């Protein structure tokens, strides 16, 4: 929702997407307290995601995962100068309203939390705060953008430390965009139907060759090499959840992933920062998981 006062407009698509543009080439880190938020900022994170439990703990603990306690979000906002994001459940617009009232910088309508609505996502156009949403394919990404998302992240499989799903989702989105770019105008109607995506957005991707909003990567990134991989596959920035604070040496891991993200195409730099890092988070084989978070949202 945009609003004008005295010649200035807040909440426009340009200023919402603009913050995502500023985060490009950076690392957004999951943090559960102000101390972790400081470590993230010290290491060069471009933003932090404030949540009560990182995805691997949500996975372990089970139960309903909800929006974080506002006090915890406020404490993290007070601790750092970089943007603070927070998660709302899919479809839970009241949680999103609370996060907007708390003045968070981005709301993640996230499959990592337990969905609140199995049919509808949040009407994100109704908000001044911008939203990021996950996607496993192009149709899902364009449906979220149609609902007002200003940033898309490939979902991956959060909390596993396994990058395989993130790679699958990025490759799928990119392959489907290439298909649109090579289609002729009359094919786009049927392709929009197959993708179950709004036709104007399908036509826009066919014209430009990329999403109308930035595309970041999330879910399973746990080493500098993982960051380099997904950036080379076309992600413009990375979200790292459990991968930092579940590793043996979070400070070094955070620094290393930040540097690998900036210099992702320079293997000598990625090799240097990968050296002697200690062990990454333990991780899980995704084929044995009981709950596939990426299947939440549609």
């Amino acid at each position, binding site marked *: 929702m945009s609003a004008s*006062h*005295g*010649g*200035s*407009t*807040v*909440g*426009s698509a*340009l*200023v*919402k997407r*603009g*913050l995502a*543009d*500023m*985060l*490009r*080439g*950076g690392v957004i880190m999951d943090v559960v307290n102000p101390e972790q938020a400081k470590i993230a*900022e*010290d*290491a*060069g*994170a*471009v*933003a932090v995601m404030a949540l009560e439990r990182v995805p691997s703990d949500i996975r372990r603990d089970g139960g309903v995962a909800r929006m974080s306690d506002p006090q915890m979000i406020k404490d993290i906002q007070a601790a750092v*100068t*970089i*943007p603070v994001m927070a998660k709302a459940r899919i479809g839970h617009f009241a949680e999103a309203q609370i996060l*907007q009232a708390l*003045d*968070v*910088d*981005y709301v993640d309508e996230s499959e990592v939390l337990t969905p609140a609505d199995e049919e509808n996502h949040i009407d994100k156009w109704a908000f*001044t*705060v*911008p939203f990021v949403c996950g996607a496993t394919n192009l149709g899902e990404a364009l449906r979220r953008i149609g609902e007002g998302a200003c940033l898309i992240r490939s979902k991956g499989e959060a909390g596993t430390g396994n990058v395989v799903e993130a790679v699958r989702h990025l490759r799928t989105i990119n392959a489907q965009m290439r298909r649109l770019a090579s289609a002729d105008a009359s094919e786009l109607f049927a392709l929009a139907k197959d993708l179950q995506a709004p036709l104007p957005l399908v036509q826009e991707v066919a014209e430009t060759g990329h999403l109308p909003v930035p595309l970041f990567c999330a879910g399973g990134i746990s080493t500098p090499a993982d960051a380099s991989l997904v950036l080379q596959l076309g992600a413009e920035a990375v979200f790292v959840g459990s991968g930092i604070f579940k590793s043996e040496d979070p400070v070094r891991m955070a*620094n290393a992933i*930040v*540097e690998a993200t*900036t*210099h992702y195409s*320079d293997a000598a730099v990625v090799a240097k920062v990968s050296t002697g890092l200690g062990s990454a988070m333990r991780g899980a084989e995704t084929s044995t998981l009981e709950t596939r978070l990426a299947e939440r949202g549609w």
Partner: protein
Amino acid sequence: MRVGVLALQGDVREHVAMLHEVGVTATTVQRPEQLDNLDGLIMPGGESTAIAHLLGTSGLREPLAQRMAQGLAILGTCAGLILLSTTVIDGRLDQWSYAALDVAVRRNGYGRQTASFETELDVVGVGMVPGVFIRAPRIDSVGPGVDVLARHDHGDGLHPVLVRQGAVWGASFHPELTKDTRVHRLFLDSI
């Protein structure tokens, strides 16, 4: 003319596209040797703490300071302005900056993201241009050698948003996020 865009983090692509649009070949800068032979440099928007950190780890911090001392023309937008300023208010306790532009900036001086805004700005010698402010730094004061090229009234009086001190230019806003190339042209014409 060879103009670089500091490419450690942030909206590098938009600046490169702006330069391309006005017929200037841009080079991206990630390593010290890439500063050689540049006539100008753009420091993009992004997170100033992250870019400052990466200037250190990439070995660019000192070589860039030397090029500034030699008079390299520089345009900093948003985070770039913060990094060029003499005084940074509301930053991290250990926040450093190049002190190449005699201004005091307040980080997130207009508020957090929900206060980010678009407006129109009257730029000296150019006319009305779109101004996009994203968690923008606010220029609280300028030193005697600083020219103010645009001001904005955010409901509490006019204050500078585009400034120049010799070869060093700073903008609180993001001309690169719009299709209007005139602020970039103004900077390039000065080189």
